[in-house]
Structure formats: structure tokens, C-alpha cells
């Protein structure tokens, strides 16, 4: 089992999901694969179900927002194969302004609250999620606080602006 390597994983994914893999990188020793949103769910299911890959543990997931990119919203998932001690990060981006991702809570129940948290922060919806409500913020909150345009502090406060520091 411990023979799980980066080459094996990428080869296996590329042969099965040809065209859906957008990029494969090693970021600080962490295998990061960006995939097409339409095949995200099937890739995740494959990573979980395939016996030689066996990514049985969902470490964490979170939303991402890059307003400068064409595909500005994204999801990040981290999976862990404990017997082989191999971790993998899957990312997927969309340019939809109101993104809907497929839920992972049927594969990993651990995704349930984390997806609710992502919904709470970013406003993404998760197709097939059993209980799509806000979780940490109050229900009456307007807007999605982790989106970059959501103001944090008094917007007139200038001492924390990058432009003050030549950036």
C-alpha cells in the first residue's frame, strides 16, 4: 500500500478522466490537482472508491475566491490515504456568479457541516446536501462574508491598505 506515488495517482486519474484534469502541481510537497467542475464529483468518488487509491479520509474542505480570475470561485478539498500516508488536494473553479457544487456529504459525512460553513461564508450551494442552511452566522446576515468584496472594517480606515506600503 505504501507504494502510492504521485505518478501512479496522476496516471490513473488521467487515463480515467482525460480532459477533466486542468493542472497537476506539487505545492510545498503537496500534490495539488485542479479539475473541471463538471467531473469533480465523479473524480472524488473515484479517489474514494478505487481500492488502490483509497482516499478514505476527508481532511478538510473550504471555498476560495479570486476576483481577478475569470473563474473566480472555487472549492478546495484535501483527502488523506492513511495506510499509505498520502495526502492530495483537489481544486475546482467556476466562473458562475452563483456557484452550485455537488455535495460530498454522501461520500464523507464529515463534509456536511464543512459545506454548510462554505455556504455560510461564500454563498455556494451544494447540490444534494441534506440541510443547506447557514451554520456559524446568523440567518439574518445579508451577504457572504468571506467573499473579497465584503468589507471587514470601517472602509475609511487607511492604515491597513496595501497602497500605503507601495504594494
Amino acid at each position: 500500500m505504501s507504494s502510492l506515488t504521485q505518478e501512479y495517482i496522476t496516471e490513473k486519474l488521467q487515463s480515467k478522466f482525460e480532459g477533466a484534469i486542468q493542472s497537476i502541481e506539487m505545492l510545498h510537497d503537496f500534490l495539488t490537482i485542479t479539475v473541471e467542475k463538471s467531473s469533480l464529483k465523479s473524480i472524488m468518488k473515484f479517489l474514494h472508491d478505487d481500492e488502490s487509491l483509497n482516499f478514505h479520509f476527508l481532511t478538510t474542505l473550504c471555498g476560495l475566491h479570486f476576483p481577478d480570475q475569470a473563474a473566480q470561485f472555487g472549492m478546495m478539498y484535501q483527502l488523506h490515504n492513511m495506510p499509505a500516508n498520502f495526502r492530495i488536494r483537489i481544486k475546482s473553479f467556476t466562473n458562475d456568479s452563483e456557484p452550485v457544487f455537488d455535495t460530498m456529504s454522501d461520500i464523507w459525512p464529515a463534509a456536511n457541516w464543512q459545506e454548510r460553513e462554505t455556504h455560510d461564508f461564500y454563498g455556494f450551494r451544494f447540490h444534494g446536501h441534506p440541510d443547506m442552511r447557514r451554520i456559524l452566522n446568523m440567518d439574518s446576515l445579508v451577504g457572504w462574508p468571506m467573499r473579497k468584496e465584503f468589507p471587514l472594517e470601517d472602509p475609511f480606515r487607511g492604515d491597513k491598505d496595501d497602497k500605503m506600503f507601495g504594494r
Partner: protein
Amino acid sequence: MNSNKEILKEKEYTILNLGPTHPATHGIFQNVMKMDGELIVEAQPTIGYIHRAFEKLAERRPYNQITPITDRLNYCSSPINNMGWHMTVEKLAGIEIPKRVQYLRVIIMELARIADHIICNSVIGVDSGAMTGFLYVFQWREFIYEIYEELCGARLTTNIGRIGGLERDFTPLAWEKIHKLLKEFPEGLKEFENLLVRNRIFMDRTINCGPITAERALQYGFTGPNLRAAGVDYDVRVMNPYSGYEDFTFDIPLGTNGDTYDRFMVREQEMWQSLSIIRQAVEKLDKMEDKTTFHADVPNFFLPEKEDVYNTMEGLIYHFKIVMGETEMPKGEVYHAVEGGNGELGFYLVSDGGRTPYRLHFRRPCFIYYQAYPEMVKGAFLSDAILTMSSMNVIAGELDA
């Protein structure tokens, strides 16, 4: 022909609102419970009462100012959170930490683990009706806090250490206190164990209380003592060693049933392992020739001595750059995990080269495993549900971020 319809007697349930500020839940947790007499039919947890938007806050703060935020995650073992955060930034910036500093950090982190487990285990005792042990070991937590105080000046929200090392070296008094702890705490811990471990009442109350299978625990993303109590030997310190843990010898205690008693026992055994790790670290430090290093040589990140700030040009420049958050950070993304008091505490950091993180996500262990709570208490007595919750070591600060 009898046309009378069958009379269906509707079962009446009681809705019980446990929390948000119930003294038995040790924190701000609300559970709306559907009760059939004293049995729980359904539990619906509500969380977020002390949500402080840490992930958003972190996007507007320079790296060194995020350390105090991490204190307030799992406040029972804040030093582990602090160290985890420093190590994440060090990984991103490519800072090598000298061995001596790594071992000093290990001592701090293991002290924090002991303090964390003391609270959790003694509170299990309280919830099963044994107050004595709690008051007794609290003196030892107090003593560990005194050590923190000597190391960083604070007790609960420690803000201990800096990016690139520690803020100051261990003082002679700190060493004295650590040696006293190593000498006298085992005796205290043993006495605490004698009160509970083979206590008939305690065993009857905790065995088979809130059990979870290993398979289910993995699906729910359990980590830390809760997962190990179910029989899975996953420990970040061994799987992905950090801060020199690969140099230490220690066992990973395991349970079998994943019930409250096993969780209690796993934590109990872990405290002995932590003590052994601290002892090994002290030995290793004694053997080391280097007796003074307490930070890496990274002037871009580590504040210079005040004397240098006033008397040298470089000192002043570096001081200004660090305080104003002007240090260049590399672009990139990094994940770093540490074994926190209650599980794998992970930091997912995306940097765009700016003065603040572009995105910082905390993998908070108890937020992930608290999801399993309704399933674990279904069909159990209310009093067992209270015990199950305290044995899961759910910390409100970490749960709500």
C-alpha cells in the same frame, strides 16, 4: 361490518432545549433534543454562538498578528495552536528552525497537551459525579499555567513564541518549574487515576456510553484521542512529524470501543506519553552543546533586540519592517497540521505575496467531529449525552472559530 377506524395513538415527545448556556455543557452549545421520557430520539445541535470570523480577520492582519487569533481557537491548549501557526508560516517562508528551538517547542506543546487532557478528563469525572479529582488536578493545570507565565507572560491566551523561534529563552525559574512538574506530577496523576480508572461507579457510567465505530469515526473525520479511542492509530506527530517529533520515542495509546471510557483512558495514557516526551526533550537539551539559541537567524521575521533597534541601523530597519508588516512573503499555498489537544489542527494558507494571507483556512478538529454527536447520543439517556459531550472535548472557541 365494522366501519370504525383503528385508533392511532400518537406518541408524544418532549422537546428539550439543552443549552446554549447550560452549566452541564461546559461552553456555549445548544442542542434541541426530542425526548421520549429520558431517552433521546433526536438531537439537533446549533453552533456559532461565539463565531468571531477568524478566517476573515486573518485576511486583514499581518502574519505575526494572527498568532493571538489562534490562541482563541482551542483555548485549553493555545500554545499548540500558536506553534502550529508559526510552523505554517515558517514552511511557507522556508525557515529552518534550529534543533534546540524545536525541542523547546516540543516541551511547550506537550505541556499544553497535558493541560488540555487534564481539563477534559477531570470534567468527565465531574459529569459522572466525581468532583474531587477535578479540583485536585486543577492545581496541576494551574502549575502548567505558571510555567507558561514564566515563558511568555500570559496564562490562557498565551501568544507564545514568534515566527522563527521563541520570543525568549526559558528562564532558570521556568526550568525549575518544569523539573518540579516532571518530578511531582506523575504522583498527582497516579492519584487521580486511582480515583477513577477502576472505580465501579465511573466504569458503569462511562463504558458503552456514546460509542462510535472506527469506520464511522473515519467517515466523520474524527482525529486525535477520539479517533484513537475507536482504535485507529492516527497521530500527526508520527504520520507527518514536525518540530523534531521524529527524534522522540513514544507510544500511541489506542482504545477499542470508541466509548467515553476509552476516550478517557486514551487521554490518560497520552499524558504519561507527554511526560515521557518532555523528559526526553530535557535530556536531549542537556546533552546539546548549544545552550542559548532560542530563535532561527531570520532578521526579516524575528524582532531584533531592543538594544540593537536603538543603536544599529539594521536593527532599526528590521524592527520597522516587521512591525509595519513589510516583510516579503513568497507566493504560494501551504498546509501544515499539528496534533492539537483534540485532533489534527490544520492551517491551509494561500499567500499572494501581500502583507496578509490571501486566504487562511483552519481545519478545526472539533468542528468536524462534533457533527457526529446527534448520531452518538441517539437512543441514549440524557445523562449519557452530557458525558459523551464532555468526553469528546468539544471546545466552543475552536468549534465556532
